């Protein structure tokens, strides 16, 4: 069949806004997801003069979300300075949420269904939703359904002291019971990722981000919030030597390499990105930093299939590259989310590995290596911290600005791993 596809339009990235990210139970301990997302939307609105305006759609989400926040994004829009007639919906794809939200908005723009949209994400690990245990929940439901006093007493009599301890949300996989870090420790060991290279990558992330702050790179990407002007996880004076002194927290024995220094901490924060058609941006006199060219998701069977929990981006990448006729080397910037330093390193190693690329990815030749000097040049999650759903928006806005500064025709690649064995990758082009 002849290829009749018309050249489709791609969504422009106009700009972004985020609040500085804060380590759990620090500056944002009293702020809710809705407080943070609303403040972030308002900052974006102020930056681009959208007060009282209706945008096509606002798409955002949170990974740790209370059930009363079922309409978190719409509620945040109603509390923001955007027009109350702006539609919104929530998405959740673990750490992929923010990038997936941007892809959803970009796709609707590409299809002509909307002319503008905001993609975002927010997470708090401080104001986290506690749930009552399943046993107590069942008792409370039967209590609520009881018609007579006798039935109510019978229901109440089923409560045991142990049930009163709430379920804390944990950063662990429901099907394996392993923390994400424990999963990644297995992957790191399989790929032979050393302690030293992890600590070096972590130190470089801090240095790159500190330098970016110092030269004002984040001035039009970050709005101070609750007294915080920079990410408070950022350690400009971090060194590989200092990081080498930390004790491993994931993995066991001799082979354990993952520490609190080369793993991201629990973090609170929010981000948002403004996307639009070129026409809409031009009509408003707003800049176009880059376009979101394409994206791809993948998932791996980390439960029974023997693949690493965070290796899905490795699978998504060749599919997207092939569709766009590109090689892994055809990019000016690489943004690989640093869930753990070893995630970045095992992903890069997998793409260089002929056996993995042949057996797992079905490729004739490995994707090959990348120029490391183009990787996370303004720092990534190890420095900024990682409020799960907010990371995608942080990366998209920063990369779009980098590409714009580098000039037209530059390409950037995003790779984000997510809980549940999923991954999202995307291409941006200026």
């Amino acid at each position, binding site marked *: 069949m002849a290829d009749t596809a018309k050249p489709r339009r791609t969504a422009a990235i106009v700009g972004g806004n985020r609040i500085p990210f804060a380590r759990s139970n620090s500056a944002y301990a*009293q*702020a*809710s997801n809705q*407080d943070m997302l*609303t*403040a972030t939307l*308002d900052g974006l609105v102020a930056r681009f003069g959208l007060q009282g305006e209706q945008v096509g759609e606002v798409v955002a989400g949170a990974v740790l979300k209370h059930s009363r926040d079922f309409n978190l994004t719409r509620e945040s829009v*109603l*509390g*923001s*300075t955007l027009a109350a007639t702006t539609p919104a919906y929530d998405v959740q794809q673990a750490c992929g949420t923010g990038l997936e939200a941007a892809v959803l908005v970009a796709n609707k723009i590409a299809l002509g269904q909307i002319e503008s949209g905001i993609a975002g994400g927010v997470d708090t690990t401080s104001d986290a939703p506690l749930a009552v245990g399943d046993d107590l929940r069942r008792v409370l439901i039967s209590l609520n359904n009881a018609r007579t006093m006798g039935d109510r007493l019978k229901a109440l009599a089923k409560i045991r002291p142990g049930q009163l301890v709430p379920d804390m949300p944990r950063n662990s996989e429901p099907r394996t019971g392993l923390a994400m870090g424990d999963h990644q420790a297995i992957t790191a060991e399989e790929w032979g990722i050393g302690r030293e290279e992890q600590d070096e990558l972590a130190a470089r992330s801090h240095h790159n981000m500190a330098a970016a702050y110092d030269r004002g790179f984040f001035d039009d990407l970050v709005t*101070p*919030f*609750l*007294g915080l002007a920079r990410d408070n996880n950022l350690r400009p004076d971090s060194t590989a030597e200092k990081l080498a002194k930390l004790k491993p927290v994931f993995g066991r024995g001799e082979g354990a390499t993952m520490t609190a220094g080369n793993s991201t901490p629990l973090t609170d924060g929010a981000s948002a990105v403004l996307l639009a058609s070129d026409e809409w941006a031009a009509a408003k006199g707003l800049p176009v930093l880059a376009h979101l060219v394409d994206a791809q998701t993948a998932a791996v069977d980390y439960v029974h299939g023997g693949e690493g929990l965070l290796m899905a981006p490795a699978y998504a990448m060749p599919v997207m590259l092939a569709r766009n006729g590109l090689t892994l080397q055809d990019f000016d910037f690489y943004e690989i989310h640093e869930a753990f330093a070893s995630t970045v390193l095992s992903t890069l190693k997998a793409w260089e590995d002929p056996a993995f690329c042949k057996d797992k990815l079905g490729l004739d030749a490995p994707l090959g290596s990348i120029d490391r000097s183009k990787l996370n040049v303004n720092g990534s999650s190890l420095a900024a911290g990682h409020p799960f759903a907010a990371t995608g928006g942080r990366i998209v806005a920063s990369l779009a600005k980098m590409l714009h500064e580098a000039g037209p025709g530059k390409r950037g690649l995003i790779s984000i791993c997510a809980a549940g064995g999923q991954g999202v990758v995307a291409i941006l082009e200026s």
Partner: protein
Amino acid sequence: MATTVLDGPPNLAALYARAALTGRGRGGDLPDTHLARRGVTVDRDHLAAYARVCRLPFTDVLPATYPHMLTFPLQMALMTDRAFPLATVGLVHVRNRIELLRGIRADEPLDVEVWAERFAAHRSGATVDLCATAAVAGEEVWRSRSTYLARGAQAPAGAPEADVEVVVGALERPAATWRVPDDAGRRYAKVSGDVNPIHLSGLTAKALGFKRAIAHGMWVKARVLGAVANRLPEAFAYDVQFTKPLFLPSTVHLATGQVDGGWDVAVRNAGSGTEHVVGTIRTLEEKH
């Protein structure tokens, strides 16, 4: 005029105790005293608690009603002082007008000052205005006027007529229904320090002549602000009349109407339609 500068906030519970003990009020004219605090910084945890209890957004900007948290204790100190002519117990808050002259950031130290003025004649007694102002580095950014009614009290000869009415347009369509719980008074008292017994429980309210505990007027005012907080100009006047007590618990309707230059608002009982609060919010075009 004499200005007394205090180092810290007066203890409101102690002031209420003093008010209950010293009883009846001295009569005569209003004192000329101003009470002030300089360089007051906002405690963000308190701001967060205030935002939560009033359902206001928690950001770096103070809600227009928040500086009242800083000025009300000073006003109470003034009202319970023996120089104040009216008995504090039994004073009814009937009107509050706040003018926000510009947005105030939570990290700006505030100089606050309060005084009493406008002793006025009212058909059922006398009213007095407790005024307050807040400034940042010499620039006035906020002011407030709380009118209190003392039933049965006598204004001095030649006093002006009381001015307690706020007029709003027809507001027929409720925008929201609020279930105001039994403990709404206790919850706001915990944050604001306003432990007036009429708000705390049915029993303590009965002792002061109310059939049930009543909600704090300034809490209702702040909650209404929360409903329109993101649809306001930078500088505005927010004027409300507390018409009838909001007994706890209650279900009430908030009605809002957009008018030229701002909003008209009303809070009414969902069943009886009794009006608890009516108010206007209007853009302030220029600073006075």
